[in-house]
């Protein structure tokens, strides 16, 4: 089946256009690097045709793993049409990428997105003239407002191969002509493959090597001859070829933009943009961080975990639903063991469903709303500026904050997002820190809920301890993992007022995914606990774990069950502690929560670590994390006793 690919720079609205054209919702965020894998979906009005949403590429050659995924699609997919989605207000940069893609030999359309921002800045340009200059259809769009989407869909139907050729320097043109004759047949034009190869694109080199292997014996692809030709050309320039080619395209893009631009507009200075400036200010930035943290704490910890959980757990479940259901089961179910399995202390309903619906659901809902608002506003990307100095100590740069903040939503997805980082070293360290000390949304919500009942002091101790562990272990990892640190270079997306519909859509999509994953796992967890209790393993474990849990951590022996549940999912374990309620002192609650925060990541995250980093690395990480969690928990217990902490 032939496909249509959406290609473009990061944070230009490809995923919103994908959603408009397919009806499939994918995560859309106001920062670069949200899409790290290719997403496929059938076109809404043409179900037989697939649309591909690709990770953003600033330019080609690809620089990170997510960018390489896009280069891989271009080289390996039989594309019917290429739709470049471009940021209309950054026209020069958009045209620069179009100048390369237009020579790919594939029918192409350019969607100039975010035209609302162009209008807000007072920019005007001639799209008709731009279309003529590039030899392709140009469709202005505002994807978030569904503006121009019908026109884009029609343009995709009649798209033609652009009539365009950029003239590079004579030496380059001669080498490209030579290379075209030496390259295998491909879906893309030989000219574009030659240009990508000359620029040192890794995905192109891999593709060529695989083609050489496939075609060995029939049509020989002489990789060493290709490399020699590239080296010969490089000798004629002092700068790397990638830069020479890029400059040629940028110069041409400049000239085109000058011809089509009528008014270059002004940078916006609305209140929301000024807030964006303050949020990265060396002094004002930190009070804003504190304010944001407090707002999230009040909304999730006090309102979600306090008010809403109180209504659902105490009033609805414990007060009405559970007694009614227990009555129903004891009346109609003849077997005691089955009654216990359904409504006993480890019952599928009384533990599994009550935890998932009454405790977790209100907490994650409030967290996802708060997270969606911050994500949509563009605030997260600004944290990379403020946190850069701190991450420098870990041998990383501020960009590492993005997967970490995303980890507060879901550590599993955040582990995948480490692909936006530029080196394997950065990815390894951030993956480890995610597994170690970043609590996911559900766990964080439960933690906030419990800590809210112990007071702000307890919350600050928990936060301080986790941050201390994160930076101490991170600093050690930075020293131990070999490789060079990459300095911060990042783009800050414009601050925007969050769109209510987008936040609602995101919250709903995350909740749907969360409940689909959590309810079965919580039910399995409850059933497992029931079986372990039935066969006497749980009482044995509680007794065997006493020296560690009661002696070392100073927790009541019932907390062993919560720690065991933490192996399945950290939030399941935290909810187990939450359910112990008043039988835990504030000191015990704090020790339990710190231990569980550092504890092993959930099963899904572990699988993702294996996928991204390999089994050996995952085993080593787990082997470090479990003893460390107990060590910190025990030390904290002693420290809190020493200072006489009572909450």
């Amino acid at each position: 089946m032939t496909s249509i690919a959406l290609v473009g720079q990061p944070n230009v609205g490809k995923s919103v256009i994908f959603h408009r054209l397919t009806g499939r919702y994918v995560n859309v965020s106001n920062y670069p690097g949200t899409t790290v894998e290719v997403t496929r979906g059938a076109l809404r009005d043409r179900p037989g045709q697939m649309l591909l949403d690709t990770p953003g590429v600033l330019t080609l050659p690809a620089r990170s793993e997510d960018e390489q995924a896009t280069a891989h699609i271009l080289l390996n997919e039989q594309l019917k049409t290429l739709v470049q989605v471009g940021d209309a207000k950054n026209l020069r940069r958009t045209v620069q990428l179009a100048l390369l893609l237009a020579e790919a030999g594939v029918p192409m359309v350019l969607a100039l997105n975010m035209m609302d921002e162009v209008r807000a800045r007072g920019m005007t340009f001639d799209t008709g003239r731009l279309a003529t200059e590039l030899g392709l259809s140009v469709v202005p769009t505002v994807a978030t407002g569904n503006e121009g989407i019908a026109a884009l869909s029609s343009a995709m139907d009649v798209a033609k191969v652009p009539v365009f050729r950029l003239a590079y320097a004579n030496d380059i043109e001669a080498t490209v002509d030579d290379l075209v004759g030496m390259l295998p047949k491909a879906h893309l034009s030989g000219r574009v493959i030659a240009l990508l190869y000359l620029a040192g694109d890794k995905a192109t080199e891999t593709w060529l090597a695989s083609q050489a292997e496939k075609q060995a014996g029939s049509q020989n692809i002489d990789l060493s001859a290709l490399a020699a030709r590239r080296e010969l050309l490089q000798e004629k320039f002092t700068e790397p070829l990638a830069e020479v080619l890029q400059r040629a395209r940028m110069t041409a893009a400049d000239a085109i933009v000058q011809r089509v631009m009528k008014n270059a507009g002004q940078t916006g200075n609305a209140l929301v943009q000024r807030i964006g400036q303050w949020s990265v200010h060396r002094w004002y930035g930190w009070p804003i961080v504190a304010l944001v943290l407090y707002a999230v704490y009040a909304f999730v910890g006090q309102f979600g975990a306090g008010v809403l959980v109180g209504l659902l757990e105490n009033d609805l479940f414990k007060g009405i639903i559970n007694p009614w259901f227990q009555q129903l089961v004891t009346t109609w179910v003849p077997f005691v063991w089955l009654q216990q399995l359904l409504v006993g202390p480890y019952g599928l309903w009384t533990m599994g469903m009550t935890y998932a619906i009454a405790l977790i659901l209100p907490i994650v809902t409030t967290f996802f709303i708060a997270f969606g608002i911050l994500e949509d506003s563009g605030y997260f990307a600004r944290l990379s500026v403020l946190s850069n100095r701190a991450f420098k100590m870990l041998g990383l740069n501020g960009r590492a904050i993005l997967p970490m903040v995303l980890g507060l939503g879901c550590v599993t997805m955040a582990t995948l997002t480490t692909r936006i980082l530029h080196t394997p070293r950065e990815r390894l360290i951030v993956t480890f820190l995610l597994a170690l000390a970043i609590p996911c949304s559900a766990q964080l919500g439960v933690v906030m809920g419990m800590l809210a009942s112990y007071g702000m002091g307890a919350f600050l101790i928990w936060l301080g301890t986790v941050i201390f562990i994160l930076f101490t272990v991170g600093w050690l990892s930075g020293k131990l993992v070999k490789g060079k640190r990459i300095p911060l270079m990042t783009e800050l997306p414009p601050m925007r007022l969050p769109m209510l519909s987008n936040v609602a859509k995101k919250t709903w999509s995350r909740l749907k995914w969360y409940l689909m994953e959590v309810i079965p796992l919580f039910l399995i967890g409850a059933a497992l606990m029931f079986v372990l209790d039935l066969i006497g393993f749980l009482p044995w474990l509680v007794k065997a774990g006493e020296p560690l849990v009661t002696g070392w951590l100073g927790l009541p022996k019932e907390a062993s069950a919560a720690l065991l549940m933490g192996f399945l999912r950290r939030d399941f374990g935290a909810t187990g502690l939450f359910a112990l309620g008043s039988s835990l002192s504030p000191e015990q609650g704090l020790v339990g929560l710190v231990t569980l925060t550092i504890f092993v990541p959930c099963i899904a995250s572990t699988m993702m670590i294996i996928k991204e980093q390999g089994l050996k690395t995952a085993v080593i990480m787990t082997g470090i994390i479990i003893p460390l969690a107990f060590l910190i928990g025990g030390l904290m217990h002693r420290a809190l006793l020493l200072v006489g902490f009572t909450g």
Partner: protein
Amino acid sequence: MKSLREFAPGASLVVEGFDSTLTPEARGHLSAWGLMPGTMIELLSHQPVTRLMVEHAELALEDTIANGILVSLRKP
């Protein structure tokens, strides 16, 4: 022609070139954002990192990178 770090925030500048201290990767990245000789930029701040506007995009660059960007004042 001076380093970007030598100008005060608020300055309107033109990129003249890059210092040899910048790695090819860093130069590649900057050029991908459109920062090349002849590009006009607006310097926003130096702390906590250097921030600048190129076209309508805001970039944040650490000192070592900003030091390697050579610029001159844009003529009115």
